[in-house]
């Protein structure tokens, strides 16, 4: 009885398994077919390049993004009017071959390439450029929220239906290959800003077909459109194939690309959020490369034959000093702290090899860098006497640092904290450590409340614009720094409004000098961000602003 029942069950199960097998179609033939085709027509070396990212893209439409992982994928599919010179942050021709700004800094005329098509076959021309600008300007409702359209918000500062409307006025298609953008105020960083993926050129036809701006907008229910999740259409060397949320994005070469054809048959960007897991996946051959290599892993990876590529640093790590704390309001105390810190030791103890000591709040590659700012050399004796002079020999300070975060400018904040803490204690400062989880707690406390003393923070530049560093930090009174310096705020507002780069550069040099005399914080270092690759990978060109396009990448099998 029992036996016959179990036999029946087994038979049923077997039959079910047989019935299931083969009841869905494999679309494998298609995939490999597409691959060989690509190989045939372009003479590509072939293969799949698998790269591990730390997070999923937020969406596939870069206009709605401000995070590195969305941009990493977007850079492969999209291009802007302006690119960057390889390995630098300087602007270079891309979809526009040249541009000219008017003398008053209010209009820019871009001459466009005439051999470019979007992935949907539509031509790229002046009308397409204007369609993109008008799209951004006419966003309404939730699309105006800074967490969605951060870059348009922060650079153009307004929309068609807001008051003020911001600095965009109009776009005119003068001819098929010439478009003029008019602004209401000068914006010297305009051309550089056009290299941001957020301002990539997208196919107007595809955006209309897939309802790109239909972010169904109830308040607690933002959803991205079909365009942003399944049909991104740009002009780049790769086109979209599939996105399995949380797992991977797959891209394939665009056969009609105007520039150098991609060499691999397929690109897969896998999401592996844990840094250790990324390293192990590379060691085990499951991926070909990954970003955000932990400083402690570099030498062991190199010893095992993996390639380490460093990006030129385009960032700053600093120690903030909150002047809402009475002792820190005294410039002598701030100077003492600056003299107490041995930046070289901080670098060797907690930052990747090759990181540069910082003398000011911008890296050297950003315009406005001043060679002759006041520097504060490591001098513990000087620090002690300055503290004594200020009557603060018995100083106790809160020291805030974040946990559970690794940023390119701050790969291991806990270790950086330990290094600086011991240096401060060596000159007689008593440190009260306060650790918080990075987002939102730490950021909330540092940027939103006066409840902090010394703190670690930093910034990675988005594009070559001084205001993107100095303006972000010191543009106006903020709880992060706790000071009100009308002179500095005024100088920054004025510099931002200057119409050309040439006029801005000396103004920003002056501001850098002023800041380093005022000493609101101690610039520590420009840490080098590292990527790791398997030995077979070639042709990966790093960029300080992460303008890395993978069409030259090869993976020999």
């Amino acid at each position, binding site marked *: 009885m029992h036996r016959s029942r179990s036999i029946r069950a087994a038979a049923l199960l077997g039959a079910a398994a047989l019935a299931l097998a083969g009841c869905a179609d494999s679309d494998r033939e298609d995939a490999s077919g597409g691959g060989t085709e690509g190989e045939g027509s372009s003479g590509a070396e072939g293969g799949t390049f698998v790269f591990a990212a730390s997070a999923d893209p937020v969406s596939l439409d870069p206009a709605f993004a401000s995070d590195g992982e969305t941009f990493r994928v977007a850079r492969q599919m999209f291009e802007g009017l302006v690119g960057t010179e390889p390995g630098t942050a300087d602007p270079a021709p891309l979809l526009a071959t040249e541009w000219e700004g008017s003398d008053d800094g209010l209009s820019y005329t871009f001459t466009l390439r005439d051999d470019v098509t979007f992935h949907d076959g539509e031509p790229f021309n002046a009308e397409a450029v204007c369609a993109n600008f008008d799209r951004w300007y006419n966003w309404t409702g939730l699309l105006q929220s800074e967490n969605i359209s951060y870059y348009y918000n922060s650079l153009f500062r307004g929309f068609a239906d807001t008051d003020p409307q911001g600095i965009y006025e109009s776009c005119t298609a003068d001819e098929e290959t010439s478009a003029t953008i008019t602004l209401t105020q000068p914006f010297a960083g305009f051309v550089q800003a056009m290299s941001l993926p957020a301002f990539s050129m997208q196919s107007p036809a595809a955006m209309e077909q897939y309802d790109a701006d239909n972010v169904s907008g109830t308040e607690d229910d933002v959803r991205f459109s079909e365009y942003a999740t399944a049909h991104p259409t740009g002009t780049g060397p790769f086109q979209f194939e599939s996105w399995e949320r949380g797992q991977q994005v797959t891209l394939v070469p665009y056969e009609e690309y105007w520039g150098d054809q991609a060499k691999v048959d397929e690109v897969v960007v896998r999401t592996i959020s844990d840094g250790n897991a990324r390293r*192990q996946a590379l060691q*085990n051959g499951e991926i070909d490369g990954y970003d955000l290599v932990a400083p402690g892993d570099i030498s062991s990876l190199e010893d095992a034959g993996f390639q380490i590529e460093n990006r030129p640093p385009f960032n700053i790590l600093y120690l903030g000093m909150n002047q809402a704390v009475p002792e820190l309001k005294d410039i002598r105390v701030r100077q003492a702290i600056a003299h107490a810190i041995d930046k070289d030791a901080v670098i060797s103890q907690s930052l990747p090899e090759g990181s540069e000591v910082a003398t000011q709040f911008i890296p050297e590659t950003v315009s406005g860098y001043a060679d002759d700012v006041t520097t504060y050399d490591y001098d513990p004796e000087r620090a002690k006497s300055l503290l004594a002079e200020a009557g603060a020999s018995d100083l106790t300070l809160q020291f805030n640092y974040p946990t559970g975060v690794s940023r390119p400018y701050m790969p291991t904040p806990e270790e950086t904290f330990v290094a600086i803490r011991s240096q401060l204690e060596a000159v007689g400062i008593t440190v009260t450590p306060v650790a918080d989880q990075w987002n*939102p707690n730490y950021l909330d406390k540092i940027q939103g409340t006066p409840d902090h003393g010394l703190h670690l923070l930093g910034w990675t530049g988005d594009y070559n614009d001084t205001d993107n560093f100095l303006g972000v930090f010191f543009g106006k009174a903020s709880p992060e720094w706790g000071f009100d310096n009308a002179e500095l705020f005024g100088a920054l507002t004025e510099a931002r409004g200057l119409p050309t780069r040439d006029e801005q550069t000396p103004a920003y040099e002056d501001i850098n000098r002023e800041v380093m005399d005022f000493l609101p914080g101690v610039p520590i270092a420009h840490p080098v961000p590292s990527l790791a690759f398997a030995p077979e990978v070639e042709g990966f060109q790093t960029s300080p602003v992460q303008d890395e396009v993978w069409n030259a990448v090869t993976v020999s099998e």
Partner: protein
Amino acid sequence: MLRFVLRRLALTVPVLLGLSILLFLWLRALPGDPARALLGQRATPESIANVTRLYGFDEPLYEQYFSYIGALLQGNFGSSTQTGEPVTAMFRQGFPATFELAVCALLFAVLLGIPLGYYAARRHGTPLDSLTVGASLLGVVIPVFFLAYLLKLVFAIGIEPLDGLGVFPTAGRQNPRIGATHPTGFYILDGLLTREWDAAWDAFLHLVLPAVALGTIPLAIIVRITRAAVLDVTGEDFVRTAEAKGLTSSTISRRHVLRNALLPVVTTVGLQAGLLLSGAVLTETVFAINGLGSKLFSAITLLDYPVLQGFILAIALMYALINLTVDVLYGVIDPRVRVS
């Protein structure tokens, strides 16, 4: 029986409603500003005010709750504030990974745990028994995170001089180079359905280490419970009677000992099945499996209210359903329960 099931199902409704209120309030009591969490380091006072207004974070709590529950009753769970992805879609997309993992871990625990516990009890006092008891104690106390890491080091990466053992993949659910087709999202099943046998095999290999890591604690507990229950039943009068009647020992084991000993084991398995979902958070992180666990984890760190609410409610519902199944199974195993 049907009435019992229906009554239990009806009971879960007020439970879930209560949970939704508690959850709603608890999440909003967590420290941190959700607008800041959305904006990150780029936040300015103006942008925080703007986002707070656009997302309605400043509305009275009861209004927020009623608009949430109103949408929920129409089957709308809202969407992630971080990515704009509908919560239901996120759940559907994360569920297969976690389900596969939990099922494999549970199979590992049950298929190994019950026989081990049974034989340990039947050979009570022998070295095999002591070894099983000792090993299961170790299994209970070892942290999942540590075990996962250790397994990965030895059996995926390979360490000197045991390099040869590192045969399993370290991360993810499948090798992307295989180019598998995924009609359902359950990768092993997908491989079988589409006859991409290598893809199914590859997905299975990816699951071995995570399943062992996640299944070890339940395994150890099941071993101990089974052993204790079998020992208990072996001493009962009816077993002695059966022996006296002259039944073969295998019949006694199957019909009398095991069947009676299974009751507490089934209870334990049911409870463990629920716990697997929470254990999956750590395992998924270590093995880079983007299932419900890792989504939940990032939602907590970023104060993604809709995702947290939706996922926790769904997990609570699953937990309730699993326990209901266990209660129904009691009746199947033990006719005495059926009567009452």
